[in-house]
Structures are given as C-alpha cells and as structure tokens.
C-alpha cells in the first residue's frame, strides 16, 4: 500500500457521503425545474410523473419570476436577514464590550446571556408568539391591559385626572397579523442570535492588544476614539464572519415563520418553496435553484474569508 492510499481511504467515506448528499437531490431539483411536474392534475395527468417528454425549458423560471409571491418572498427574506444582522451586530458589540471587564458575577451573566442560543427554534417561536407576544393572554396583552387600567384609575384622580382623560386607550399589537409577523420573527431570532455575536466578539476582544490601548490612553485618547480606531478595526473580521454565518442560517429560516403565522404576510424563499411543493414541483424546484444562487453569493465571500486562515 503506497503512502497516499491510506489517507485517501480514511477520507473517502466522508467525501463520498457528502458528494451523494449534495449531488443527487440537487441534480433532481435541477431536473424538475426544467420539466412540467405537478402532483395532482385532473386535466393533464401526464404531468404528474416526472418525465423528459414534459420538458418546459425555462418555463418554470419564467412562471416563478412573474409571480408576485416570489418577489415578495425575496424582498421579505432580505428584509428579515438584514434586520436581524443589523440588530445582532450592534447589540453584540455593545454587550461584548460591556462584559469584557471583570465584575462580580461575570460568569453567571455570561451563562444567562448565552442560554437563548441553545433553545430549539420551535420552542423559541412557540414561547415568543404565545407566552410573550400574544395580544390578549401573553405578556404583551397583559402589559397593555395593565397600562389601560392604570390610566383609567388615574382619570378620576384629583388634579392630574384631566390630563389623563386626554389619553387614548392603548391597543396591543397582534404579531400574528399580516403586517407584523415579520417583526415577531425578527425579534425572536435576534434574541436567539445576539448571544452568538456576543460570544464571538468577546472571544475576539480578549486577543486585543492591551499595550496598544495603554499607549493610546497615555496619548490622551478618549473612550470613543479608542473604540473607533482600535477596537472597531480589531473586530472587523469577526463582524464579517458573524454577518456571513448568520446570513446563511437566516436565509433558510423556516420553523419560526411557520409557527408565527403560517407564512401569512411573511413568506421567505424556503417557505414559498414549501408552498409550491404542495403541488407544483416544477415551480418549487425553480424557486429552489434561485435560493441556491442567493445562498452561494453569500457563501463565496465566507469561504474566501475562512480560506485565508485555514492553513495558518
């Protein structure tokens, strides 16, 4: 056995399994995206079996691109991902800096902070949309009702009563509604992923050059300029990594969207694919190919970043 054979042999199960896992389903998706293929059709029963004779060329892609849902789903996917990224990066930096010093109970605070990240997505969504955001029975509804009661009782109070009787009655926001369900998803995912950003930024802050910082302090640099010219550049790379890893994860959000509103007013690409896949497999596959392209654009940047440090 030559020196090269054994390492190859050891790698082959993993490589082969992943190769099959990647090529077979993706190849099928590509094939289905070019044929007419529906699960139920009384009028054209020949379309219910995948076959080359139902070749449609780019017809499915044209069909998908002309549907309003598709463009809405792309827009909504990007809206959700960008909002979550913006919120988690800002919060992540602030919190990481806040707990980067020693203080009493720091270990416990870290444990409290990281916990949301380990909550399974289904529980996260069920917990937020019911126990917290429900407009009547959740904390959201109870808090608004409490404020209304307080205002009502103050209206009959002497002196300030006149002022409070001008106040309107507050309405709790329903987060299952068409206009608001995306915000509910953004909120719960931000809650879950901010700890991830904090953890990464904190790890990175620990390798920050302290001597450089001390020199800056001696030169009279203020807190803001220390942050702006030392900490922020140091965090550049972790920020890029947090952004890209999260982009990949959140482009395929599914459970949260399903649980919050069954996609009502809040479809993203994976959800739209799931809906198409109830009957129109051709369209679902074409949408899938668009999702792959979108994810690849993000992934190429990530691979470049990671590739640089690989062999260090």
């Amino acid at each position, binding site marked *: 056995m030559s020196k090269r054979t054994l390492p190859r042999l050891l790698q082959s199960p993993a490589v082969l399994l992943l190769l099959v896992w990647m090529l077979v389903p993706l190849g*099928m998706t590509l094939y289905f995206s070019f044929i007419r293929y529906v699960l139920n059709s009384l009028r054209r029963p020949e379309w219910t079996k995948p076959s080359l004779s139902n070749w449609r060329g780019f017809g499915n892609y044209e069909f998908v691109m002309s549907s309003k849902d598709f463009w809405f789903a792309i827009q909504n996917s990007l809206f959700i991902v960008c909002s979550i990224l913006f919120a988690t990066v800002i919060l992540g930096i602030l919190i990481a800096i806040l707990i980067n010093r020693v203080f009493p109970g720091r270990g416990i605070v870290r444990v409290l902070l990281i916990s949301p990240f380990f*909550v399974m997505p289904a529980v996260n969504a069920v917990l937020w949309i019911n126990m917290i955001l429900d407009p009547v029975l959740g904390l959201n509804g109870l808090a608004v009702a409490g404020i209304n009661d307080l205002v009502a009782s103050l209206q009959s109070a002497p002196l300030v009563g006149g002022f409070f009787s001008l106040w309107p009655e507050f309405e709790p926001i329903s987060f299952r509604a068409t206009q608001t369900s995306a915000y509910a998803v953004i909120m719960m995912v931000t809650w879950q992923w901010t700890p991830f950003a904090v953890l990464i930024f904190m*790890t990175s802050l620990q390798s920050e050059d302290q001597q450089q910082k001390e020199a800056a302090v001696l030169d009279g640099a203020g807190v803001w300029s220390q942050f702006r010219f030392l900490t922020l550049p140091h965090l550049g790379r972790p920020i890029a990594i947090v952004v890209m890893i999260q982009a990949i994860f959140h482009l395929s959000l599914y459970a949260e969207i399903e649980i919050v509103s069954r996609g009502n007013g809040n479809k993203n690409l*994976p959800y739209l*694919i799931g809906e198409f896949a109830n009957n129109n497999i051709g369209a679902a596959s074409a949408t899938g190919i668009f999702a792959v392209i979108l994810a690849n654009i993000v992934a190429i940047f990530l691979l470049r970043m990671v590739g640089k440090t690989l062999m260090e």
Partner: protein
Amino acid sequence: MAIVAPPSKFGKVGRPVLAWAVGLMFFFPIFWMILTSFKTDADAVKPEFLFVFKPTLENYLNMTENYDYWRFAKNSVITAVAATLFTLFIGIPCAYAMAFNPSRATKDVLMWMLSTKMLPAAAVLYPMTFLTKSLGLFDTHFLVILVLSLINLPIVVWMLFTYFKEIPKDIIEAGQMDGVNTWGEFKEILVPLAWGGIVSTALLCFIFCWNEAYWTVRLTTTDAATLSKLIEGNRAPEGLFFGRLSAVSAAAVGPIIILGWFCQKQLVQGLTFGAVK
C-alpha cells in the same frame, strides 16, 4: 509594567449593574417559560397570578398524557446520539488523514465540505421527500439519523481538523519510529491527546442534532418524530394551554441549555470554523 487606568465611577457600579440587567433581560423569556410551567393552565393567563401563584407540578406529571412527551424525547435522544456517533465515526478518520497527511487537495476538500453546508435545505425539499418515500425510508429513525449526520459532518470534520492540527507532528513521527502502526498511532497517541477536542465536538454535534428543525419536521410524521416536531405541532394553543405547553417546552430545551453552558468556548471555534480564536 502595565498601566492601570483608575476605575471610573461607571466602571465600579454602573458596569456590573448594566451587565446584570442585560443578562437577566436575555434570560427572562426562558425564566418566564419555566415560571409558567409551574402554573395551572387557568392560572397561566390570569394577570393576578403573574408572579405570585400556587406552584404545581401537574404540567410535568401529565406530560405523557397531554403530549406523549417521552415518545418524542426518546426519538430525539436516539437520533441525536446515533447521528453524533456516526458522524464521529466517519469524521475522525477523515480529519485525522487531513491533519497528518495533508495533500495539495486537502484545503479544497475542506472548503468544498463547508460549501455543502451552505446549500439551502428547502431547495432539495421535494427530491428528499420523493426519494425517501420511494425508498420506504420516510419517517424512519434511520433516515433522520442519516440526514442529521450529513448536515453536521462538515462542521465536525472542521472542528476535529482544527484540534488535530494543534498536535505536534513530532509525537506522531516518534511513534512511527517506534514501529507503531496506524491503528496504534491513532488509539495510543491521537485519541488521548485530542480527547478534549473530540468530546466538545461531540457535544456540539449533539446540540445541533437535537435542535434541528427543518428536516426533522418535514421528513417525519409519527414514528421518528422528534421534539422539534412535537412543539411545532402544538404551535397555537389559543391561550388555552400555556401551562402545559411551557412545561413540555422547558423539558425539551432544559437539558440542551445546560449542555450548552459547558461548550460555549467550543461553539465559537465550531461555528466560525476556527477563523475566530
């Protein structure tokens, strides 16, 4: 000599207070879920019992009756443990070969593995449903274990690779000089040295398997359904069952949160593929 800036007033009092406030705020939803799980369904939605109530264990005691919790929990444990073991079984030899006998292609293979992770699951939803149904694998433990293994294999290989890389090659070479064969080299030298890394990789893989919520929901119905599927199926109780739903949710995430506390550090390495240290 290090110059220590005199602690400002904020540093002494404000920072700890603010940090604790932020920590408690982030933990609050979990705390709330646990608190609600000790209320009866009727008490859970009454404002007068927000914080002060008569705690009860009935939601936990009736978990089997209400949700058939243990059946789903058993499926979660079986699939996550088996998938973790299988992934390690395939991943350790692979990472071992990559770390100690790298060829020119190693870097590209690693990159390619990572890229399979970026394939959006939804894109292959129908082919997977179609294939598994026609092969009779739909809703079986075997399928869930296989899929969980495949989606975690790239991360596991990457993590193990970054751990193995840290082991000095001299040690391995010294072993070879002494006539140790590959299996012995592996068992006597590599595994003891990288034990910590292997354990934390396994823990993280187990957490990811347990929390997976796309394939476990879409490729199962009853027989192999995991806790993700159970919770997803009870998404909208219309406010009737907040108590019992909180209890089953807490039981589904509790063990994993505690496990997660132990591998915070590995999480950074695992999820950033060693690019942030």
